[in-house]
């Protein structure tokens, strides 16, 4: 596609529920990143995929967070047992080969109530 697409754009969920956030990167981009941006903060790195595999998941805050990219294109970020502190904008980015000129999506605003 023309850009990085993230769905949904907004998600409100109750504490304790499970959520999935989807990222559709630019076609042909092998590198995909997830970041989280809390209010008043810069984006924080969560996980980086090169192709289908997670090359670096050191930013995932705990084992409630998991991400997959089974076919090397679309990625899903999964959050189990959501907590109010998970409320943030979740950003996805892709790049052709892992270089630094990422293209970011518009993000999914997650609100846990």
């Amino acid at each position, binding site marked *: 596609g023309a*850009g*990085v697409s993230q769905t949904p754009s907004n998600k409100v969920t109750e504490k304790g529920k499970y959520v999935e956030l989807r990222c559709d990167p630019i076609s042909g981009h092998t*590198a995909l*990143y997830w970041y989280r941006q809390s209010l*008043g*903060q*810069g*984006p*924080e*790195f969560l996980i*980086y995929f*090169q192709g289908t595999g997670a*090359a*670096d998941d050191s*930013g995932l805050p705990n084992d409630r967070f998991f991400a997959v990219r089974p076919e090397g294109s679309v990625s899903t970020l999964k959050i189990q047992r959501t907590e109010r502190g998970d409320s943030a904008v979740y*950003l996805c*980015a892709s790049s052709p080969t*892992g270089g*630094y*000129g*990422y*293209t*970011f*999506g*518009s*993000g999914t605003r997650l609100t846990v109530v």
Partner: protein
Amino acid sequence: AQSVAQPEDQVNVAEGNPLTVKCTYSVSGNPYLFWYVQYPNRGLQFLLKYITGDNLVKGSYGFEAEFNKSQTSFHLKKPSALVSDSALYFCAVRDTPGANNLFFGTGTRLTVIP
């Protein structure tokens, strides 16, 4: 650990005046430095980067940044501000040598006053 600091939460400048958004960094190894801009309800957009070469880097929309190793700074500049430049600006540094992810600053909100 790598880090960046954006000492100003907010910068106001009159339209047509030069603008500067400040960034200082702390890294081990060679710094890879970046500027991104975030417009309301839109994703972060890449402006420019410094990896090696000339200390003055030119980027998108007329922006430029000067890498200053002795002052560990990478300030973003534009000679003549436009109202449409009003946005949130983030400085970023490669997280660790060899890493592919970036460590972002807390952002500076630029407001250009007509």
